[in-house]
């Protein structure tokens, strides 16, 4: 029994994934997007966070009433990956100094639900590069942000299947199962683009 690592990212159409609270491209979530998020987090019983996301979220979510994510992230066991100890306290958080790929590979072997990765772009890239991500849950906002941070820089993986639905007028939700055993590269040509 192995567990799936599920990467959930909010992205602009041109592939940037900065914190939507800081980027103005994302727009408002409607009930369909909330429903999609609820479905994703409903399967997760563990969350992996990078240091930067942790330091943004630890002061924010404990007092947030934005549901269903606030209850989920405040009560679900969280692992924060950082070589140095986080300066902030957030109940339910365990600090991990071990390199993320080796630690997560072990975590996947234990029983449990999905392991969620939210935001945490550096961590996400490391896990993608190590072929430890089993599923991509991408919410694509209908906007060209023009610049920012790309979650997929330097990562390679191919995916076996995908489904898409237009959730709000605002976003397209895409579910893609990663198939790390069949890694290949392709250049981006014409209007055919990779994820």
């Amino acid at each position, binding site marked *: 029994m192995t567990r799936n690592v599920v990467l959930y990212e909010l992205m602009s159409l041109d*592939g940037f994934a900065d914190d939507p609270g800081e980027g103005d491209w994302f727009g408002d979530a409607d009930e369909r997007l909330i429903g999609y998020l609820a479905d994703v987090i409903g399967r997760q019983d563990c969350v992996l966070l990078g240091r930067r996301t942790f330091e943004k979220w630890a002061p924010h979510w404990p007092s947030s009433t934005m549901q269903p994510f606030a209850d989920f992230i405040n009560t679900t066991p969280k692992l924060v990956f950082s070589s140095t100890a986080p300066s902030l306290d957030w109940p339910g958080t365990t600090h991990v100094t071990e390199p993320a790929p080796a630690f997560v590979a072990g975590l996947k072997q234990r029983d449990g639900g999905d392991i969620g990765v939210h935001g945490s772009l550096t961590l996400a890239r490391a896990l993608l590069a190590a072929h430890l991500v089993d599923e991509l849950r991408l919410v694509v906002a209908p*906007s*060209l942000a*023009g610049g920012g941070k790309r979650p*997929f820089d330097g990562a390679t993986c191919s995916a076996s*299947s*995908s489904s898409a639905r237009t959730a709000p007028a605002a976003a397209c939700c895409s579910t893609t199962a990663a198939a790390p055993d069949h890694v290949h590269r392709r*250049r981006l040509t014409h209007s055919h683009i*990779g994820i």
Partner: protein
Amino acid sequence: MPRAVLSRTVTEADWDATIVTDAARVRGPADAADGDTHVFGGSSTVAALAEADLVDGYRIVVHPVVPGGGTPFFPALANRQPMTSVESRTFDGRVTGLRYARARVTS
């Protein structure tokens, strides 16, 4: 079908093509056409048009692969360009087709 070729170096084009040397001037042939003008080009062609905010819609086919390198389809832009999601569908369980229209403020 009227054709225009975008190039800064080409001076003659066969196939009845109009040469457009400046992306900002592509509106001339586009406005002269009855229907939509389609752009079949590489990322640098589309980048030049996107930077000039001359693209009214995108039809994008997304393949389920994270290539990890290559030329990003969309260029860095000075300003955000909001779109409206028109359509998304999955063709064969793998490839996703996306259609967007540029959302412009009408005056």
